């Protein structure tokens, strides 16, 4: 829904035209073929995700279908802005790992 949303995979806004989508996909496929580091990840609201040629081709195919584009737009338009840093687990401040052990119990 969010992580593999075609607009995020291609790094485009939901307003992008069909020509822009095709052009961006060709550009990304070329960059991936040439092993460009910039093309190897894309930003999502849940943090960066790895980009592969298969994901790019699947994204373009999805956006060519009007119904699938409608659903992809629904998600992409309403999602919060993409995050540039990976998601980190929320630390449980109150937990004390190893306390059981130090109080004489296992595990």
């Amino acid at each position, binding site marked *: 829904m*969010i992580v593999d949303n075609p607009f995020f995979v291609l790094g485009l806004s939901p307003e992008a035209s069909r020509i822009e989508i095709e052009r961006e996909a060709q550009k990304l496929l070329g960059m991936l073929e040439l092993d460009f580091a910039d093309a190897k990840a894309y930003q999502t609201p849940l943090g960066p995700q790895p980009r592969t040629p298969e994901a790019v081709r699947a994204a373009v195919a999805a956006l060519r279908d009007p119904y699938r584009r409608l659903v992809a737009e629904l*998600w992409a338009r309403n999602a919060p802005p993409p995050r540039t840093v990976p998601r980190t687990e929320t630390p449980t401040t109150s937990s004390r790992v190893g306390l059981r052990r130090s*109080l004489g119990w296992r595990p």
Partner: protein
Amino acid sequence: MYVAPYFILFRIHRAALEARRKCRTWHYVLWSVLAGILAGAMIAFGVTLVTAFWLVGLWWLAIPLGALMVLPVVLPPLIRHALVPLGLTRVTYWAARFSRPGADAPAYGACCAAWAFAHAPKPAAEVWLAQQREARIPLGDAEVVVTALMAAGKGDADTCRMLLRSVAMLVEDHPVVRELAGEWLAVDCAERGAWRELHEFSDTHRWPATPLGFFLEGVAARQLNLEGAPSQLELLVRFLFAPHRRATAALYDEAVKVQPAPAPQGDPETPATELDDAPTPLPRAVATHLMFGNGDPTAARLAATVRAWDAALADGTTHSWLARRALELDAPLGAVDRALREVAGAVTEELARAADRGRLGAPPSHGPVGDALARKLRHGRLDALETGFTRWSKRRLDGATRAAIDEWREFIALQAAYADAVNAGGLELRRLAFPHAFSTGSNMAAWLWNTRHEYALSHAISKWLLSEALIVGDTEAIELGHRNCRLDVVTRLGSVPGDVDN
């Protein structure tokens, strides 16, 4: 005649410990002080008598006398601080038996041995402990605690926690065994920071507190800012009485620094930032959904997410935007409804997985997501429950006999599944699930009582069925439950009078 004062001291010491187990007020400290003084007096008396015998040349009598008089007093701290950490399973077993913990000393011995096993698990020790446990028929609280601590030794804290909690359902009650179980659970709660859970389970009757457990309960009460929480001085006294002070010092410092919290404003678990800025329901729902997936699933967060989705999918703005965009994209007829259904389905799937992971019930929200989620959770859990109960009853009909502890584990797993299902579906699902649970459970209880002579186990099942029957109002089940629960339960500590309120 010379040892008569020692036995008087011994009796009073035992009585002081018994009295301590029954309270959780400042009396606990008084009884602890009295027990400590009496223990000191017993050691002093024993040493004096041994010295006297030695001086008059009766050294051969002095040595066993010394062992008999001094060891029972020094063994409990020796077990905790030396034998258990060294993982000496068999030595711990005999030391614990010899420490005279009251009636049925082998029960305490086996539990301490399992505690030692947990520190240094070895296959031979595991086999030996399992043999000790299997030899004890019928099943009681000690055997469940032994199994739990053996699971802890293998790193399975979840099984250990589940088994130790289940001890509360058994009528056989070894106070020393329950103290150990209660301490493990208290330490476990402290490690997870589950102070509310620790406070709720501190029930004097079911779990007499050890000094460490009593201290942790005080910390929990302070952390939760509860009325009646111990004062700083009282907590200091509890801290000084508890073992492992180097490890508990940080907990003490943290607890005394806790300031009374201001009254919460609104729902504390519903994330307010970002969401309140969202102009329309749909971005709000997506943001809530992402935040829910980003943290630990809790009932309040799930409810907020479901509410947000139900509002978003019923919102006119969402529908009109979709209709306009479908026209612009030249989408096929019915694309709007299909898209809404697809979004609702995907969201429901994801939330159902999170709810199952966090063992959460369906929130009371009515809409495309709320209703679908409730249906999905209810059906999935009801199906799993029926399969579990059917498997349980089939095994009895097949004549497959398992160890009593395995029967107990099966029962508590089914009971947990039942609680999950009921949590998800409320009274409606409880009424649907109960007849199956009742028919299988009452047959199993009768079989365990009549054929296997597992009285405590059977009684626990009957008690649970009766409590459920009372909730759903099944008169036939209530009548049968009352009859079964009134039967006296034979345990190793004697016959426990049947009582529906036990």
